């Protein structure tokens, strides 16, 4: 049944991706304020971080507290390679993603053996370790002052990335490509195996699935995708900073996916958009953004008790099936709502 769906699914995804990219490219032309482009580039970077984290949290049930470590390794590896002045941007990107995948392979091999909360703790420990390496290894990374001196942007294929509009276009294309890749992974047989591991690891094991290898696979892939987010940010701010690897960055990614919701594929992007927008405007109007942001989060969590995209999705589902819907019941749900592979498409926002 699945293989039958896969091909039209892919076509639909590609069509959707092309439409999304076109929209992203047209948007700044319709509203040519530089601030909109800036905002969207940050959205791409953190969106990739949140989306890739959700491959672990939502898809596989691995709650990582240390995902930003790979966001940072991507940024630093890319920045350092570009600063040598001998590498082209695409090559540096590939090397940074590959290097991060390698780091994730080593760390992941240790981490994925641990269960539940202990997995969370050890990912956090490794993240703090990577952060302290960045801060301590001053001769390479510049320590707490970050990678200084700017990251050069030599032209690729005649495209001058120093032009803010071209830079934006390139980031948008990379972003959409990565989202498409993540979509394919989550819809592949591998992706369904991961869902099975999340819902019932014992059964998966019984069916002969190598649970550890599968988890490691998605851990490495998610890390690679996070590193793309990191290098987009590094390219844009023309530097890399140890704060990228601090636990607060991982924390923020978690809040993005929780705000958006973990069950719908693009939910984390909704959360990213929400948090970025909130942060943007609250920072402008008040210095007490902690108070405002904290209150908003509390209201959403206590009021809706779930991610925004999940709520909207349930509401749509409820209307569609016209059954008396029971969203956010008071009973704590041990088992998550069943994964909704194709239905999820209908409620894609963004």
């Amino acid at each position, binding site marked *: 049944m699945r293989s039958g769906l896969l091909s039209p699914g892919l076509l639909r995804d590609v069509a959707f991706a092309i439409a999304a990219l076109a929209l992203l490219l047209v948007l700044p032309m319709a509203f040519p304020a530089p601030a909109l482009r800036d905002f969207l580039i940050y959205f791409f970077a953190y969106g990739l971080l949140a989306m890739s984290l959700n491959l672990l949290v939502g898809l596989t049930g691995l709650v990582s507290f240390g995902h930003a470590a790979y966001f940072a390794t991507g940024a630093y590896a890319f920045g350092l390679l570009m600063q040598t002045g001998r590498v082209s941007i695409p090559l540096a990107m590939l090397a940074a993603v590959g290097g991060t995948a390698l780091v994730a392979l080593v760390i992941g091999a240790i981490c994925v053996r641990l269960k539940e909360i202990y997995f969370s703790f050890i990912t956090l420990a490794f993240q703090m370790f990577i952060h302290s390496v960045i801060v301590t290894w001053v001769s390479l990374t510049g320590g707490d002052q970050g990678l200084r*001196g700017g990251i050069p942007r030599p032209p690729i294929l005649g495209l001058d990335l120093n032009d803010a509009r071209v830079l934006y276009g390139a980031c948008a294309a990379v972003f959409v490509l990565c989202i498409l890749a993540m979509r394919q992974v989550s819809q592949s047989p591998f992706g369904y195996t991961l869902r099975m591991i999340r819902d019932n690891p014992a059964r998966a094991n019984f069916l002969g699935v190598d649970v550890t290898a599968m988890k490691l696979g998605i851990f490495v892939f998610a890390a690679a995708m996070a590193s793309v987010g990191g290098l987009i940010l590094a390219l844009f701010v023309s530097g890399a900073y140890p704060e990228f690897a601090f636990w607060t960055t991982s924390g923020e990614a978690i809040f993005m996916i929780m705000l958006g919701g973990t069950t719908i594929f693009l939910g984390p992007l909704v959360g990213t958009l929400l948090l970025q927008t909130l942060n943007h405007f609250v920072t402008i109007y008040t210095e007490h953004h902690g108070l405002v942001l904290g209150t908003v989060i509390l209201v959403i969590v206590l009021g809706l008790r779930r991610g925004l995209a999940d709520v909207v999705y349930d509401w749509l589902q409820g209307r569609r099936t016209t059954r008396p819907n029971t969203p956010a019941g008071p009973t704590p749900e041990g088992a998550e709502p069943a994964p909704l592979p194709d239905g999820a498409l209908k409620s894609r926002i963004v």
Partner: protein
Amino acid sequence: MGTNTVSSRAPSRRQVLGGLAAGAAVTGFPHVAGAQAKAIRVGMPTILSGRVAILGTSSRAAAQLAFRQINEAGGINGRTLELIDRDSKGRPDEAAKVTRDLINNDGCEIIIDGEASSGAFAVHEVIRDLPVLCLHTCSETSSLSADPKLHVKTAFRCARQGIHDAVAGGTYAARNAKAKGLKRWMTCSPDYAYGRDNTAEFLEFAKMFEPSIETVDQVWPKLFAPDYTESITKILQTKPQAVYSALWGGDLVAFIEQSNLYRLFNSITMFSGGLGDPPVLTAIKQLPPGLNTAYRYNRNYPAKPANAAFADAFAKIAGHEPTNWAWQVYLGCLFIAEALKRTNGRTEGTALAGALKGMSIAAPFAVGDTITMRDSDHTIIGYPVAWGRTVPKAPFVEDFSDVGWGKIVELETQWKKSKGYA
């Protein structure tokens, strides 16, 4: 403080709204909004939350004070200066973002960068991209202005520079070491790039001037560590004659109070790079007398009426004595106003940078007559780099002894050559 903040923010908030609306509606020409407005907008990315919030709040108060005075004196060709501050929460990527927003969206034509360490470098890169005039008023890292590779045409540093303090500190330490026979030294500095560089440079110059100085041990507590007991007992074990520390801010307050419990300063001569900052001195409940400290700010030094007047006016706005950051920001505002006068109110980055290069102004903080924005590397000289001793009564530090700027510049040049910067 609360009412102050609100009343001073209220107009800027409204204007920000206007700026946003203009930015969104007239999209593509955000600068128009700024150019047509009567006020010249100056943006300030800084840290207003978390552990070093006082950095941002005192920087902001100093800029508000300076702008009010400039505007009351008639502004710049009839135009007023308006401050728009924004919190980066201590995150460099956020600092880059708000700086871009301030320039692109809010029509800020000048940036006062109140960011620490990594944030300052992030803002520096933004200015490379969007070349408005930028004054760094917080980062003391020497390479920001000394390294020609990092040079940005419209970016200047209006803050103390690590290497200047190191020469002055080394000279003062050597003088004391010779007079009192202090040979065995230890250091206790925070373990991060600034702490390590600062300590290494201090020792380098101290030993250059007094070769009998010997470093017997070094301890490196973590930055923002709440507890220094193991470092203090290590110092007790090693029994040095003198200790140098690059700790600053709240960390230093805790270190001094915890050292007091062990009566550490009864037997050891203390040299501190950060103790001279008034909020640190005021926070310490039992300030031991006779600790040596670098000048950060003092209302009685330089002993000028203008300096005392600044301290009084600042305290009225902020509710506490000026910080090191406060005088640097205030001085930066004076430089901006003078540069605008010389360009006849033109705000293009290159024009202002041209006016600022080599500019000397008679500031309340000048040791001599003026403080100069050096032409060659865009950093200030002629500001106080003196050392003094603590006393129990406000303003807590006195007996400042100065180091001549001629000597500092000479040794700085040598240092630059050794680093390959010149």
